[in-house]
């Protein structure tokens, strides 16, 4: 039927339209700006096209931004530091999220939904407010230090805010639900008979976990890690508010290039490189997932 074919085309077109309008098109602008030079004009960068008599006669693309990006140690260090912080935070989130997801998946069915709502409950408050709340908790005169001081556990306030610890804490706290939900979805589908079969075949509980549960939850682990790692690497608010001036993350560098230095082309180049850095490993992982049954 012609109608059905039409329907199908529209349904297929929607995600493409979305991606095109809200990702590819803006990204094309960013890409274009990354090849221009900063200029004191409105907008604050040079033209990408060369004009003569109202017609485009050529491109004025320059790679200076990318050259600077690779040669300036600050940028390279910021990328490496972001990836490191993102990776460590993702790993900690996995270590915390896996047992949580496992416990929810093994809970009585009528209680699972309550637990899931509890996991998602923090999202009902603004992300920014929650990070400010952590500042209140972590500062030298904050709740944690006051409590420990009054209990006599410590003699002087611990330095918690403006440390790498605070950054990890913030990321793990903010992104834990993104780890728990895909893991839960996977673990909940795991047939309990498989673990019974493993036990029946002589596997002690931890060997059944390593041999059956863990490999079968791998897609959930990958999904959860990607959902945490990608936003964590580009994170700006958490390192800015909790990490203090010494935390080096690419999100902060990007922000300062864009707003402090008004160097739109450099900020754009940083964005493009970040995107490539993130997309490449994801595509590799995706390819591996399609290999696996």
């Amino acid at each position, binding site marked *: 039927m012609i109608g059905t074919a039409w329907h199908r085309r529209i349904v297929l077109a929607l995600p493409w339209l979305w991606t095109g309008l809200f990702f590819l098109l803006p990204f094309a602008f960013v890409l274009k700006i990354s090849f221009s030079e900063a200029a004191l004009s409105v907008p604050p960068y040079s033209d990408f096209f060369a004009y003569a008599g109202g017609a485009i006669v050529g491109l004025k693309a320059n790679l200076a931004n990318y050259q600077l990006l690779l040669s300036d140690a600050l940028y390279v260090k910021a990328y490496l530091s972001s990836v490191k912080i993102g990776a460590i935070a993702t790993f900690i989130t996995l270590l915390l999220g896996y047992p949580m997801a496992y416990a929810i998946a093994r809970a009585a069915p009528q209680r699972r939904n309550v637990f899931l709502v509890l996991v998602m409950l923090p999202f009902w408050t603004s992300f920014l407010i929650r990070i400010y709340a952590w500042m209140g908790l972590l500062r030298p005169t904050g709740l944690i230090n006051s409590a420990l001081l009054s209990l006599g556990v410590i003699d002087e306030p611990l330095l918690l805010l403006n440390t790498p610890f605070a950054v990890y804490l913030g990321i793990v706290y903010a992104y834990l639900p993104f780890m728990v939900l895909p893991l839960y979805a996977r673990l909940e589908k795991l047939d309990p008979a498989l673990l019974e*079969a*493993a036990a029946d075949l*002589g*596997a002690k509980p931890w060997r059944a976990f390593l041999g059956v549960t863990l490999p079968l939850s791998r897609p959930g682990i990958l999904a959860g890690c990607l959902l945490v790692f990608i936003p964590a690497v580009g994170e700006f608010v958490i390192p800015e508010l909790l990490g203090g001036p010494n935390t080096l993350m690419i999100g902060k560098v990007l922000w300062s290039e864009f707003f402090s230095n008004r160097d739109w082309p450099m900020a754009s180049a940083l964005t493009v490189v970040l995107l490539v850095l993130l997309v490449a490993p994801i595509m590799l992982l995706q390819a591996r997932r399609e290999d696996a049954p």
Partner: protein
Amino acid sequence: MTSVIRIAAVSKRFGPSTAVDDVTLDIRENEFLALLGASGCGKTTLLRLIAGLEQPDSGAIFIGGDNMTGTPPYARPVNMMFQSYALFPHMTVADNVAFGLKQDGISGAALTARVKEALEGVELETLGTRKPDQLSGGQRQRVALARCLAKRPKVLLLDEPMAALDKHLRERTQLELMALRARLGITFVVVTHDQSEAMAMADRVAVMEAGRILQVAPPRELYERPANARVARFFGDINLWDAAAAPRRPHPAGIVAIRPERIHMSRTPGSDTVCEGTVADVAYLGTASTCFVTTTTGLTVRVLVRSDEGAPPFTPGERVYLTWPASAMMALDP
């Protein structure tokens, strides 16, 4: 014969319902025992209690003379084939079979040899590298069987082994299981809801209802001398009448029973006619037909008439005369 499994006064409750109610049962060495009952009768729970996947609330289970109370499933010398087969989907057929052997610390050439032997035993040696989702239902069942047998258990527990197979495959698998048991000489305990399956395969059948065992006996004995009406009803077709309403009343009270094939039906009355009636309905079964006769006293009698008896087939509405030897009637408790 010595008993390999002894179930002593075992009960198991799930919340308010009692799944297994004070069951005592001895399973003999090398026997093929079927646990037969309708769904929810507790037969699968009993199997899971033997495997250690459930712990009894009271009573004890002995395997090979050892009290298994508190022994986890991984330390019991029995293996179970699950109704869903529970094959590990992320492992190949060979890895599935090897899994149980690795838990026993078998590795290297010994492992390879045992896996090969187990797969050859079920004629799957060429499919070792496949994943379970690349196999047919019958092949999956054989992998599950090989995975259990590779461990060389004392007792093999099978939970509804034929449930997921089509009829044709079911009969072949029945024969294969019986041949396997004869070859390996291990004890088989099979849970099934199919009485013909139980009768065809088992040395003894334990009939279960509401968590209790009604009778344990060889199939022939169950059929010919059922302990009560509930067992009789489970095994094949039977006429069950209130003793007061029965023709040729042999007992004053209780229930009398007679198998449809023990009743002789003819178109002419004889000196030994017990009762007469009208054919109400005929169900043709191939080798025989079941005729439903309404007697002059208002009783419905099922009669099995063999197709090769020569006479033209009975049709509804015909006047018929029934007879049977008094010895064919059984007096049963309800």
